[in-house]
Structures are given as structure tokens and as C-alpha cells.
């Protein structure tokens, strides 16, 4: 049984159909990427999974039906997102942001372990614990965003364009962190416009175009597909 299974997901904004019968499945421990052009519906897909947006169709997580589950409950189930736009708490410190990441965590020991883990992953956050999140640089904010998500021990981590708008060096640091998270066995659903990064990090890739999945396959297969190479890899 897949960890997260989505069948015929349909999402609308008003009368506009944004996701049209999207189906995908992710196994435990996998790292799967969704790529697609701007406006394809990638963010909408992640927002629906996190119950920030109403949807129709079928979604299940660990066999449990996600219909009617609130955003808070999805976090409790272990579906955690580092969203597009980061959505940090700008007037709170880095430490407070991380603590809020563990809002639903019950055990203090687990919280402490996660805290250590995040600071190990992003040592730069450790140097800025008392700084307000709103005053961090873009790269640091992205680290904090991923770090905050890790604070609640995710079963599946949803990453929405984590490298967007970052300088190459910082981008590499984020990619590195994703590799480490993956190596620890956390399942990852990565949304990316940067297809190079997606192919490098993910085992399998879905291509989302205008609200539906146009192609899917392993990273290796797709990176050899001539049409994908020309439209996404610029080759």
C-alpha cells in the first residue's frame, strides 16, 4: 500500500478547473518530484493535500481517507509542508518559529531531538536563534521554513519549490539538506520548476501540465525523454 495515494483529484478556484483528475502515489521512503510550468497547479496540489484548499476525489494516507480531515489533523497524521512563500512568522524569533513547528508534538524529548536535528542540518539557523524571522535573508528563511516543517517529525515532507529565487550556493545547500532528509528515510514530495534539481533528487517524477499529469516515470527515464529534455531541461 502506498503511503500517500491520490486518485482523480479535482480542484477548482471558483469556476476555473485548476486540477483535473490528478492521480499519483508515493511509497514509504520514496522521494518523488512534481515538475511543471508556472501555473500548472503544483502549489494547488500541495495545498489540497495539506487541507488548505477544498478538493474532490480521493486521497488517502497510510490507508486512511483524507476526506474531511482538517489542516491541523493532517499535520498530526504526519503530512507536513514547507510551503511556497514560506509563510514564516516574521515577528517571532527563529527559535520561536521552530518551537511553533512542534506545536502538536506531545513529547518533549522528541521535540528536543528534532531541534538538534534541524540545527545540525542548518547550522546557520543556530547562529541566528534570537533573530526575528522576518529579518533573515531569503536563503535562511527557506532553511527555517524546511526546519520548521521538520520539527513535527513528518512522515511525508511536502516541499514547494524550496530553491526558488535563491543564489546557486544557497540552492546547493538546500539540495544537500534535502538529500540528508531523504537519507534519513523521510518520504518527500518535492515540487520544483527547476527540473535539473528535481531529476537529481527524486527517484520518480510526475510532470504536471495545465492541471493534469502528462507524463510520469523514473528520473532516469524522463531525463532521457527528448520532449522533456527540450521543454524542461533546456537541452
Amino acid at each position, binding site marked *: 500500500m502506498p503511503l500517500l495515494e491520490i486518485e482523480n483529484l479535482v480542484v477548482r478556484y471558483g469556476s476555473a478547473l485548476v486540477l483535473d483528475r490528478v492521480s499519483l502515489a508515493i511509497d514509504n521512503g520514496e522521494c518523488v518530484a512534481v515538475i511543471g510550468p508556472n501555473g500548472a497547479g503544483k502549489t494547488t496540489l500541495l495545498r489540497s493535500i*495539506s487541507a*488548505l484548499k477544498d478538493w474532490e476525489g480521493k486521497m488517502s494516507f497510510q490507508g486512511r481517507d483524507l476526506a474531511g480531515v*482538517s*489542516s*491541523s489533523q493532517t*499535520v*498530526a497524521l504526519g503530512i*507536513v*509542508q514547507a*510551503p511556497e512563500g*514560506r*509563510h*514564516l*512568522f*516574521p*515577528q*517571532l524569533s527563529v527559535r*520561536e518559529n521552530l*518551537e*511553533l*513547528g512542534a*506545536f*502538536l508534538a506531545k513529547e518533549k524529548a522528541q521535540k528536543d531531538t528534532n531541534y538538534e536535528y534541524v540545527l545540525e542540518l542548518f547550522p546557520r539557523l543556530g547562529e541566528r536563534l534570537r533573530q526575528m524571522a522576518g529579518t533573515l535573508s531569503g536563503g535562511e528563511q527557506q532553511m527555517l521554513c524546511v526546519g*520548521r*516543517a521538520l*520539527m*513535527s517529525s513528518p512522515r511525508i515532507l511536502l516541499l514547494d519549490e524550496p530553491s526558488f529565487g535563491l543564489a546557486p550556493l544557497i540552492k546547493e545547500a538546500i539540495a544537500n539538506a534535502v538529500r540528508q532528509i531523504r537519507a534519513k528515510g523521510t518520504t518527500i514530495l518535492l515540487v520544483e520548476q527547476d527540473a535539473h534539481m528535481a531529476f537529481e533528487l527524486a527517484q520518480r517524477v510526475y510532470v504536471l501540465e495545465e492541471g493534469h499529469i502528462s507524463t510520469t516515470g523514473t528520473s532516469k527515464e524522463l531525463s532521457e525523454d527528448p520532449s522533456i529534455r527540450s521543454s524542461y531541461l533546456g537541452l
Partner: protein
Amino acid sequence: MELIQEIIIFGTIKGCVYALIATGFTLIFAVAGILNLAHGTFYMLGAYFTYTLFYVLGIPLPPAILLAAVLVGALGMLLDRVFLKPMRSSHTYVLVLTVAVAFAAQEIILLTYGSQGMNIPNLIEGSVNLNGVVVSWHQLLIVAITAVVLIMLWLVLTRTRYGVATLAVSMDEDGARLVGIETEKVFNLSMFASAFLAAVAGALISPIMSMTPEMWNMPLMKAFVVVVVGGIGSLTGSIMAAFFLGWLETFTGFVISPKLTEVVSLVLLTVFLVFRPSGILGRRLH
């Protein structure tokens, strides 16, 4: 010298009442984006409920005020859950519905209690001479209670789990939902706190100012001024602006003309909205 003392003392008392009114108004605006035109209604109900609990049911004054404030808080939650929840994101709907509720409440109070002004007794009788300025004990108590209430609010917001969650929601609602905060619960608690604070202010003022079915207008206007001057969404700003307004009004009344006290807030409001919008606009509205 005495004049300056008087302005400081009476301005501070006024400022306390404004601070109680405005913090709740700011809180629910920052958290849920609700500009609640029925906020003055909570203030009014705080006074009238206290009156009934005290005179009709014979409950001693301090618990009567507390109980009245809790009841008003519950009504606030009810208003939010029943009327506002379906369309919280529409400013238009929220504005018109809350103003309509305010008028309906005014009529209910008018029918129940009549239009004549009423008072409740002071919490403590008597007065004290502060360096030549005579102040009633009740007025001093208003200052003390305000201080305690505001400190408690601050402690709740910074030290408790749902207090911090409230701050988080006011800064980024999606972010808050993504860490698992139940925003609906935060809205409910904020609405409770907001109505509770306004009710306390209404009950504390009514030994000094008569309660009437129209008494909800004044606090609403003051809340606007305080919130605009202090910066929407900023609790600290609101509290500072509340005292600023209290002093400025008292100064105007004592030094220039009592006729002008009401105009002060209007002028302040217009000047700030027109000439200092960038300096005061809160996060929520850029």
C-alpha cells in the same frame, strides 16, 4: 503645575479605558481580519449585564463584573460562530452585518432598560487627594485593573500555547495552519477575549458615565482612532495610542475648551489616515 498633574492623572484614567477597548478591537482584527463594528456593543452589554447581575440578582459588584464580562465574551464567540464564520473573508459582509447587529442590540437594550441613563455604584467609594488633585478610589482602581488585565493579556499571548498560536495566526494564517494550529479555535478564543475586555471597560466606566442604549458609539470611534494611530494589528501600538489619546483629549478639555475634546479624536484620525497611512498601516493590509 497642578494643571499638568490633573492632565496626567485624568488622561491616564481615560487612556486606561481606551486601552481596554482598543486592545480587544485590535486583537480580533489582527487575528481574523474582522473589523468589528459591534465592538462598542460588547462594551455596552458589559455595563448593562453588570447592572442586572448587581441590582436584579443581587450579586456583589466584583463577581458581577467578572460574570458579565464572561457572558459578553460568550456572546462574542456566538456572534463570530453564527454570523461571521460563513463569510469572514468578506470585509463588506462583516462590516455591514456587525453594524446591523449593533443597531439591533441598541433596540433590545432600549426595550429592556429604557432610554434613561443608569449607573452602577463605584467599586470602592470615597476619594483621595493626590498631591492636590482629588481622584476617586474607583478611578484609581480602573488604572490598577487595567494594568493587571493588560499584563495578563501579555502573559497569555507570550507564555501560553494558544496565546503564542494566536500571535502566529495574526502574523501568518496559512503558516499557522501548516504547523497544526486550529485557527478556528484561535478565532473563538480571540473573539472571547476581545468581547471580554470591552465588557470590562464598559462595566468599569458606568459608575462614572451613565449607561444609555447609545453608549456603544463612543468606544467604537475611540477604538478606530487608537487602532489607526497605533498601527493596525499592533497591540503595543494600540496601548500607547490609547494613552496618547487620553492625555491629548484631557489636555484639550482642560486647556483649550471642553467642547473640542470630541473633535480631537476625529482630527487625529483623519490626519493619520490621510497623511501617515504608510507609517501606520499594519501587515495585514500591506
